């Protein structure tokens, strides 16, 4: 009785901030698009859409993994370095530098699978450090944040690998019915993760662990297993994103692949409305968050504002997003 009454009384005030918190990302995106339609020349073209989609795909894919990690109350700083490992390993495979290839297509197949699995294994290692030794996630993943890029550079001796292998590069450059393949891949991952978070036991366990770890353990949820799995998934996502990035560039530079990715993805997650302390997460929000950040950058660039200034705006957006999250908590 009291609860219902209390709730109804609290509704009017809670509405505005509540709605903003829930749909803030969507509102911001719509505002941005309207602004661009009005002021940015040639905004409503296929080309603009493609440019933006291409640039945002890798961030979104990695950010999906990051969302799951953050939903458990963790964080994964190693994603950029794992992208570098995957991106450095793939050319070694399909160029036949590692093992001689009986058939070039076999090399491409292996290059699409093995690097992703390797990145996943490193991700699982993050989770193992965190659960086995109870190391804070920020420290545990800092290990591979530092060492991962080093591993990638050692693998390639620090050399730039340039290549032209259309079969492999389909993942970054190919089109299906005129739509970039990587965008389809990204959408598939977003939909799958959003569905899994809502509908599967694993998804609910992730949120329970992030919401109240002790309660989750006492309710029989295998907390360590859940955590190791989200870091594994984060690693797999990073590995895939690494492949896309090198495919687009037709080159692999271990120094640059995924540089700063951890920050971009955390920003996308935060802007999207996922609680950074865990327990409440939205994959679709993360997708919108990444789009917003990308679109802000594009808007500023297209209107003649230098990239350096765009960084400041990006930071401002993150502050705003976190502030909005705070409003909902009393």
């Amino acid at each position, binding site marked *: 009785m009291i609860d219902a009454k209390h709730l109804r009384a609290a509704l009017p005030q809670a509405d505005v901030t509540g709605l903003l918190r829930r749909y803030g990302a969507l509102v911001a995106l719509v505002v941005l698009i309207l602004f661009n339609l009005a002021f940015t020349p040639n905004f409503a073209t296929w080309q603009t859409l493609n440019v933006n989609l291409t640039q945002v795909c890798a961030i979104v894919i990695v950010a999906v993994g990051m969302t799951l990690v953050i939903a458990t109350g963790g964080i994964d700083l190693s994603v950029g370095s794992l992208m570098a490992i995957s991106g450095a390993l793939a050319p070694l495979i399909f160029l036949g530098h590692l093992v001689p290839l009986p058939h070039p297509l076999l090399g491409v197949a292996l290059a699409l699978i093995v690097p992703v699995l390797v990145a996943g294994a490193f991700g699982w290692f993050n989770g193992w450090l965190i659960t086995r030794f109870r190391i804070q996630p920020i420290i545990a993943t800092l290990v591979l944040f530092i060492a991962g890029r080093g591993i990638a550079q050692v693998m390639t001796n620090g050399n730039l690998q340039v290549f032209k292998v259309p079969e492999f590069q389909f993942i970054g450059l190919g089109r299906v019915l005129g739509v970039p393949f990587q965008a389809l891949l990204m959408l598939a991952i977003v939909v799958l993760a959003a569905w899994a978070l809502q*509908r599967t036991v694993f998804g*609910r*366990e992730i949120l329970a662990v992030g919401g*109240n770890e002790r*309660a989750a353990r006492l309710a029989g949820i295998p907390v360590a297993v859940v955590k190791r799995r989200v870091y594994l998934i984060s690693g797999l996502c990073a590995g895939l994103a690494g492949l896309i990035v090198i495919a687009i560039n037709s080159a692999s530079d271990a120094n640059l692949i995924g540089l700063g990715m951890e920050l971009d993805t955390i920003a996308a997650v935060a802007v999207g409305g996922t609680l950074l302390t865990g*327990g409440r997460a939205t994959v679709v929000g993360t997708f919108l968050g990444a789009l917003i950040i990308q679109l802000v950058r594009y808007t500023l660039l297209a209107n003649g504002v230098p990239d350096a200034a765009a960084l400041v705006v990006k930071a401002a957006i993150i502050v705003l997003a976190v502030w909005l999250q705070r409003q909902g908590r009393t």
Partner: protein
Amino acid sequence: MDTSPLLSMRGIGKRFGGTRALEGASLEVRPGEIHALIGQNGAGKSTMIKILTGYHRRDAGEILFDGREVDFASPQAAQAEGISTIYQEINLVPYRSVAENICLGREKRRFGLLDWGAMNAEAERLLARFSIHLDVRQPLTRLNTATQQMVAIARAIGFDAKLVIMDEPTSSLHDQEVEILFNVIRQLKADGVAVIFVSHKLDELYAVCDRVTVMRDGRTVKVAPIRDLSKLDLVTTMLGRAAEQGETAFRRARHNPADGKELLAVEHLAVGRKVLDVSLDVRAGELVGLAGLLGSGRSETAQVVFGANRAEAGTIRFAGAPAAFAEPVDAIRAGIGFLSEDRKVEGIVAEMSVRENLTLALLPHLARHGVVDEAWQKQIVDWFIARLKIKCASPEQKIRELSGGNQQKVLLARWLCMTPKLLILDEPTRGIDVGAKAEIQVLIRELAEQGLGVLMISSELEEVVEGSDRVFVLRDGRTVAQLDGESLSEPAIMAAMAHGDAAGQDARAGRDQA
């Protein structure tokens, strides 16, 4: 000795939101006196101390300290006036030296620089007062807990304290360490420093304290020289006799639970310093109460049985087989449910809905190929909401928006939907309204009659006496009595809590008491 009080708190009142924490409470401490402050959980001891030290502001009443009326705005202000508090957890800086810790916040300076020589000398001088001689330059972490505790006390005294408050200072100490601490306390007394000593261990109170103040339900119910009170007096005063005696919704079912098969048998269990030698057993269809004062090891025992903690010694048998559950999930699989004591910290997942909280443990069974069958889930949730009369706007309402009683019902349903063989309830009716309390009590009784084994921890004596078929009493981590049938009564339980046996009653389980 000067008998005008050093501290006099009178008519103290404090409300937190709608709940009354203190009403007309008083506390008087004489100079150089060791004064025990005792009471059950929620009796108001800590609120009282927090008001004294300026952590909370009082709503009513007056505080006289050292002859003046005071109203401290912060713990720092209280400290400056000579009131120091030593908390249960040691609040020191582990990697800094002993001297640095002692002088923290009042460093000695010379020419604007830290005067290490003077600080080290001061630290040594302070520790020497307690016959502790050690290298004050070594980092604190190298010392054992008791010595760290001494450093904390030395630090408190260093502020020229007139009154030292110790909140359960012995809870992390070994027996010998406790003895050292007691010597320090006696030394303080000899130097004219007054001590307020909060502890739940009765023996300790008799070992060092001069007078005792007993609190209950936010009031001061007894002040007396401790020698004038027997342990039994202390326990009875502390637990009190609720006005509405016999008003719990339990009706003792006087059926013969001895018929039930043995479900749980715990023998000589030991974990850490809280559980030393606990034995108990529960049969199917039986409601077994676990009684004991705060800190007697009840919750810790339950956690070990449920696999949330590892036993260091002893055996546990469940449903006829040896059971040493490594994780709660193993205990759950075997058919045990555990309603934890602290709803907020260990029970609810606040951000989730009633539906999700209710089926949290059941989730793996509700899935096909890892995908939750939501129709099935909804059916179960609706059934339990109706059956337990859970008041919520809808199953999708966030659980944090529910009242305490309804949250508790959801958590109870979380286990009932697993159809467990044994349900462990840790303070199942604490902090919930009277109506929900009665409903939960009736429900528990019904479930037991249907064959469920229940192990219920409760600090409310009448709940234990009226609800249980049998009761085990713990005292300082040991099972000291087993009561049933005619021998099961409030006086018997209190006698066991006080003396370690239920005078003249069947104290079979107390045979290991030293």
